[in-house]
């Protein structure tokens, strides 16, 4: 719009430029008072002091306005004067501040330059301090790991009275750990430290172990009660002492010695004092009863050995020991009782004469050798002692048997008239039965039993047979055979009741057979004699063809033979009539039968020979059928009834 206004103005100017008045007028007319705020304000201000519209006032208006404007400007000036002054003062202040700042900046700059060194130095120191701190920590840990604390050192020294505390063991363990850890140190470049510490620890260990050993030794010495009070600390000590094998060994010896004493005392008490108020009665009260006396002692030893083994295990429960070591101590502990035990049993054995009792004792000892052998090993004196005594009992037993046998041979009696067995035989058989019966009641291994049986049998049976032979030596052959058969028969019947007697029985049977042959021959010979065929039989046996026909020989003629055969025939009618009288004295019916049967066979054999020869035409018997009317088989049948 302004542009248009301008254009308009330019237009009019061009038209009315010549007229300034019109220009002015136009200008006034164009003025829009209501829009001209400035004008309005001016007018408003004017109205404040232009009160009366007079000429004078109108004339003066301009000056009035100018005066007024002047005064206002003066006032304005005055006022601004103040402002300016204040601004000047502010400016001075700011400038001063600036100066000051400038000064400070420069000073700071200087200071900064100066402290830079310090700071880097401090940083360095700080870092160093951290390193040192670290080292301190490491050193602390190291000391903690590689040195004992004062209280630990103190614990290691123990109490004045020599007693030990749990702390002692803790410290001892620590010393050990340190000592071991030093070996690691030695592999690093801390060798000097490692060596020094090791040395120090070794010293600590030495004195501590000495203390520990002394304590343990004393503790072990007190363990002489019926059952030792093995404290947890003692077990711990033994565990610790394992690091010093020699001291460990000595401590065990000490323990063993104490227990050994205790076991000896225990045995003596059981032997001589018995239980409370004498029940159970002291073992020695039964010394008149060898089996009970020895058995009680052995049972006592068995129980004591079992208990002691348990105690050793409890003492060494924390230790890594071998069975051998345990056996070693156990052997030591049970060694003390060997003598008192052995002396007593030997006394029993040497004063005992009864073979049965001796054999029972021998078996008892064998049994306990086995039983106690399950607790202590065979190197233990206790077991070797039992073995020795067992050997002694074995010898004494066989001595006793031999003694008996010798007595048998010393006074041999004549056999009784009825050829029955002598009293000595039945007595000895009874002894044998009693001895062998012991085995049924015993617990000895089969092998032992077999060995024993052999020996016992030869000890008894051989002399018995010998005794019988000697006693029979003055009898005739038939009596002797019967008597021997009777004696051996008794032995056989006894022996056949027992095991392991087979070979013996066979040997005896062979002897019977020999006697039996004698009797069979005698029996057959007697029959042939009685019927008168003995001579003929002998001749036939010895006959040789160059002698000419049999019938031509003296005594072999048909007549003689015929009459003998007739007698033989009457014998056949009743064969039992011609029996050796002694045969009926034979105890065994079976043997009697056997003699009969075998002698009949022999007789039949003889008859068969005669029959064959007589029937043989070469022998020139005229009428052989008349001489031997019966065939051998017929004779056999007759003989069998």
């Amino acid at each position, binding site marked *: 719009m302004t542009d248009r206004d301008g254009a308009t103005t330019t237009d009019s100017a061009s038209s009315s430029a010549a007229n300034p008045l019109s220009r002015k007028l136009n200008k006034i007319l164009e003025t829009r008072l209501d829009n001209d705020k400035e004008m309005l304000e001016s007018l408003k201000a004017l109205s404040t002091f232009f009160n009366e519209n007079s000429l004078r006032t109108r004339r003066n208006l301009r000056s009035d306005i100018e005066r007024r404007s002047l005064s206002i400007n003066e006032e304005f000036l005055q006022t601004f004067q103040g402002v300016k002054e204040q601004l000047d003062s502010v400016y001075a202040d700011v400038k001063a501040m600036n100066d000051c700042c400038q000064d400070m900046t420069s000073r700071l700059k200087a200071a900064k330059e100066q402290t830079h060194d310090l700071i880097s130095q401090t940083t360095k120191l700080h870092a160093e301090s951290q390193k040192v701190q670290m080292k301190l920590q490491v050193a602390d840990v190291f000391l903690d790991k590689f040195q004992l604390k004062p209280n630990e050192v103190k614990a290691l020294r123990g109490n004045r009275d020599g007693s030990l505390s749990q702390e002692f063991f803790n410290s001892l363990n620590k010393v050990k750990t340190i000592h071991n850890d030093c070996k690691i140190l030695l592999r690093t470049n801390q060798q000097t430290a490692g060596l020094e510490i090791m040395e120090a620890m070794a010293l600590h260990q030495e004195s501590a172990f000495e203390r520990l050993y002394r304590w343990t030794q004393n503790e072990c010495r007190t363990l002489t009660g019926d059952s030792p009070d*093995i404290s*947890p600390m003692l077990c711990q000590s033994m565990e610790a002492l394992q690091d010093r094998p020699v001291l460990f060994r000595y401590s065990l010896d000490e323990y063993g010695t104490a227990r050994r004493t205790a076991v000896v005392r225990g045995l003596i008490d059981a032997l001589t004092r018995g239980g409370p108020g004498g029940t159970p009665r002291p073992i020695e009260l039964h010394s008149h009863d060898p089996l009970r006396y020895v058995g009680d002692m052995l*049972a006592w030893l068995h129980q004591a050995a079992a208990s002691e083994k348990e105690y050793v295990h409890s003492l060494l429960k924390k230790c890594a020991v071998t069975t051998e070591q345990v056996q070693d101590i156990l052997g030591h502990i049970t060694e003390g009782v060997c003598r008192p035990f052995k002396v007593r049993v030997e006394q029993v054995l040497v004063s005992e004469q009864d073979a049965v009792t001796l054999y029972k004792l021998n078996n008892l000892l064998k049994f306990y050798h086995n039983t106690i052998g399950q607790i202590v090993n065979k190197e233990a004196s206790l077991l070797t002692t039992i073995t020795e005594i067992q050997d002694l009992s074995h010898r004494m037993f066989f001595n006793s048997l031999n003694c008996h046998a010798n007595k048998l041979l010393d006074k041999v009696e004549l056999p009784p008239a009825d050829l029955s067995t002598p009293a000595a035989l039945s007595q000895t058989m009874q002894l044998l039965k009693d001895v062998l019966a012991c085995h049924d009641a015993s617990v000895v291994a089969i092998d032992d039993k077999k060995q024993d049986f052999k020996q016992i049998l030869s000890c008894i049976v051989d002399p018995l047979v010998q005794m019988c032979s000697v006693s029979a030596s003055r009898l005739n052959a038939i009596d002797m055979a019967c008597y021997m058969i009777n004696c051996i028969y008794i032995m056989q019947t006894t022996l056949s009741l027992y095991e392991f007697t087979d070979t013996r029985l066979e040997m005896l049977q062979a002897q019977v057979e020999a006697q039996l042959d004698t009797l069979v021959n005698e029996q057959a010979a007697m029959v042939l004699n009685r019927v008168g065929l003995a001579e003929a039989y002998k001749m036939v046996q010895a006959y040789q063809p160059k002698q000419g026909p049999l019938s031509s020989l003296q005594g072999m003629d048909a007549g003689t033979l015929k009459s003998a055969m007739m007698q033989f025939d009457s014998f056949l009618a009743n064969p039992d009539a011609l029996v050796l009288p002694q045969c009926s004295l034979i105890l065994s019916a079976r043997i009697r039968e056997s003699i009969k049967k075998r002698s009949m066979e022999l007789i039949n054999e003889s008859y068969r020979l005669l029959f064959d020869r007589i029937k043989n035409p070469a022998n020139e018997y005229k009428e052989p059928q008349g001489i031997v009317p019966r065939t051998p088989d017929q004779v056999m049948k007759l003989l069998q009834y």
Partner: protein
Amino acid sequence: MAAGPYNYSYIFKYIIIGDMGVGKSCLLHQFTEKKFMADCPHTIGVEFGTRIIEVSGQKIKLQIWDTAGQERFRAVTRSYYRGAAGALMVYDITRRSTYNHLSSWLTDARNLTNPNTVIFLIGNKSDLEAQRDVTYEEAKQFADENGLMFLECSAKTGDNVEDAFLDTAKKIYQNIQDGSLDLNAAESGVQHKPATPRNPINTDQAPIDKGCAC
């Protein structure tokens, strides 16, 4: 240190007696191992087992001797009665003969142990009710007449087994408490282990003959 299994204050010795096959070994096995041994061989002579029990807060170690019932071992087993604090006398409730032999076992027990020995009668194999040959009542009466403690047990099921062994121990312990059992006497069958720590160097105890001062 924690109380280990060895820290007991008494040892009681027991003996188990009775005819062969009544189950003595099985009872012992059941008590010590808590297991039943179905085919247990005959005992040869004697065997023993141990177990630690607790009576009135006291740890007690039982040392139990199991004897062979076969007659041929009688001479041997008799030697083990001495020094027993407890005797367990066992019969088999399914075999009357084993019950009939009790009086002979009792005579042995009375003669060969000390007067304070606690005798406990056990009727074993109570699991075989169908084959029962001895009534509870008559056995109970026998026990009462002879002043014996009595229980029927089964080594097979474990029934009452624990009680028989423990009751015996309680009775022995009671005898100690009321002073009727003298611990100082030899062969009382009880050994006392003082639980209090001892003076380390026991000056009143004469040093043992070993003169070594190493």
